């Protein structure tokens, strides 16, 4: 080209790259450094203590519990969300069979898609406050109200849902699945619609039933979208901070009762903001980073299949 390229390239790149390095890369790198110190955050004073923060982390029962809870989220969330979303997407797109012999979704699938997707656009704060109302531990709570009306729960002893040591975390997971299914449903729907109709019609003519159609045609052709969904959900499972910190009991950033629904993110924030242990919190950040990294790589490798062109 006759025009000079170099000033143009530089001019376009300098601001985004500078901003990105200053606010993203540099803090990331600093975290690794701080994680090796006993820095409190309040003063500029810090001593190099090597890997002490990390050895302390793996003796800290609260942290190990949080790690276990994160791993539970990591298994349950993707599995539940993807299975539900796949089921709904299949029903909406190819599940219905009206008399004309074509392959199509059940009635009202457009309506269902709009409704199911809606929680995705609600801010996480709205989700949290909404479900604090739904899970209210007296008879004014929506779920308790339903259960009392059905006669399952005694009016004078309503359930404690998110404050329950055993089920608290499961209640939060319920919210995440509730809000996430719609998105993955739409994702899988888009993928299903790109599968040519004649494949389904051929299967129909060969007498394939709905179940066979799903397992032999839909699932293999959707594999790539499922893989993407898995990675996204795994990253979401490592987060979950906003909901856990506000829905479960506990003075600073939830996680209670007595660490029973603690996750790494809530522990990190409490150590950083409340206890003033910035170095220790940084070490947790590094651990979260490595788990995320390993997860993404592993899930991309393990689930790799031959790509099917169609």
């Amino acid at each position, binding site marked *: 080209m006759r025009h000079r390229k170099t000033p143009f390239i530089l001019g376009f790149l300098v601001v985004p790259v500078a901003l990105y390095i200053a606010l993203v890369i540099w803090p990331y790198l600093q975290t690794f450094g701080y994680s090796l110190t006993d820095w409190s955050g309040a003063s500029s004073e810090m001593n190099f203590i090597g890997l002490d923060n990390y050895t302390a982390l793996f003796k800290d029962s609260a942290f190990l519990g949080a790690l276990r809870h994160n791993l539970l989220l990591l298994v349950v969330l993707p599995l539940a969300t993807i299975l539900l979303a796949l089921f709904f997407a299949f029903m*909406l797109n190819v599940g219905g069979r*009206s008399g004309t012999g074509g392959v199509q979704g059940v009635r009202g699938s457009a309506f269902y898609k709009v409704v199911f997707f*809606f929680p995705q656009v609600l801010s996480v704060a*709205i989700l949290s406050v909404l479900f604090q109302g739904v899970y209210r531990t007296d008879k004014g709570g929506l779920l308790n*109200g339903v259960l009392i009306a059905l006669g399952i729960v005694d009016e004078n002893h309503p359930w404690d849902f998110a404050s329950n040591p055993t089920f608290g975390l499961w209640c939060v997971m319920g919210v995440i699945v509730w809000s996430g299914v719609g998105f993955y449903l739409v994702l899988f729907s888009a993928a299903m619609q790109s599968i040519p109709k004649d494949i389904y019609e051929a299967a129909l003519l060969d007498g394939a039933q709905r179940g066979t159609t799903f397992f032999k045609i839909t699932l293999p052709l959707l594999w790539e979208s499922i893989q993407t969904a898995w990675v996204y959900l795994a990253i979401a499972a490592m987060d979950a901070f906003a909901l856990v910190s506000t829905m479960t009991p506990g003075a600073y950033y939830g996680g209670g009762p007595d660490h029973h629904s603690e996750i*790494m993110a809530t522990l990190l924030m409490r150590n950083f903001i409340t206890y003033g242990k910035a170095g220790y919190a940084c070490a947790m950040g590094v651990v979260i980073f490595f788990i995320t990294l390993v997860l993404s790589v592993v899930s991309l490798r393990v689930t790799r299949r031959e790509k099917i062109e169609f």
Partner: protein
Amino acid sequence: MSTNTDATTGIPAQRSGGNDEPRKPGKQQRFADGGGVLNVFSHGFLALWAVLIIVPLIWIVLGSFKNNTEIGDSAWSWPSHWGFDAFTRAWDKGIGDFFVSTVIVLAGSLTLTMLLGSMAAYVLARYEFRGNRVIYYFFVAGAMFPVYLALVPLFFMMKNLGTVIPWLGLNQYAGLILVYTAYSLPFTVFFLHSFFRSLPSAVHEAAMIDGCSHTRAFFQVMVPMAKSGLISVFIFNVLGQWNQYLLPLTLMQQQSSSDPDRSMLAQGLMNLAQQSGYASDFPGLFAGMTIAMLPVLVVYLSFQRQVQAGLTSATLK
């Protein structure tokens, strides 16, 4: 859309109970029979899930018309008096301000994200130069990292920045705008990079031969051509930044009692819910949520097709 199959085959849809109705003999009939029971089952499931989503939302809206005793007494009480005082109370307690703060920040951060992101992505996608791949992977790598990794140093960086440049520090709109932009760049660059690559180069070459400058070619030729990709990634960023909770929670705390409360909507709503003062005013809280939900609902319902298409194409890249 699969639901239009009937129209294309030219046979009037017989959907009402059509699944149990044998329309043609032979194989057709067998499919339909097999689907009958399953269809009731799957319809039941779909309807149940729809109810699970709609009921809590309606329940919240109804709650903003009840009074405290009605809310506490039973989940099934019906508002005895339809008035909007709860909405005024919620507005007075700051929902309006949170809204304005959020809109200010999002307006700034989305403009910057789209502008800087598309510029960087365009140059990286269409121009050969040394270091191109390095910078590209540098951006992409950032999309993999959890924000927790940066949180602690970022907080102190903004704090220190505030002592040098007051309008960029903690609890400042401009500071948060820059942070949002920086953290949205990796995905934006990644997505738009592949999009700009897929555009044909002939139009661009023609413009250059006509004497167009590189900058002008970008803004007047390439950006209009990339419109659909830009819209997808824009919607993705709107939702992502609208949903941010951790960053404003860390960076937008009042620094002193004289510092104005510039909470984002998510953060402000959560604070209101947790303040003991608000606990005695559930109708106000419910009204606040209704106010926060309505604009999103309206925008979503008017653009739902674009939102769904945009989000899914952005994710599958």
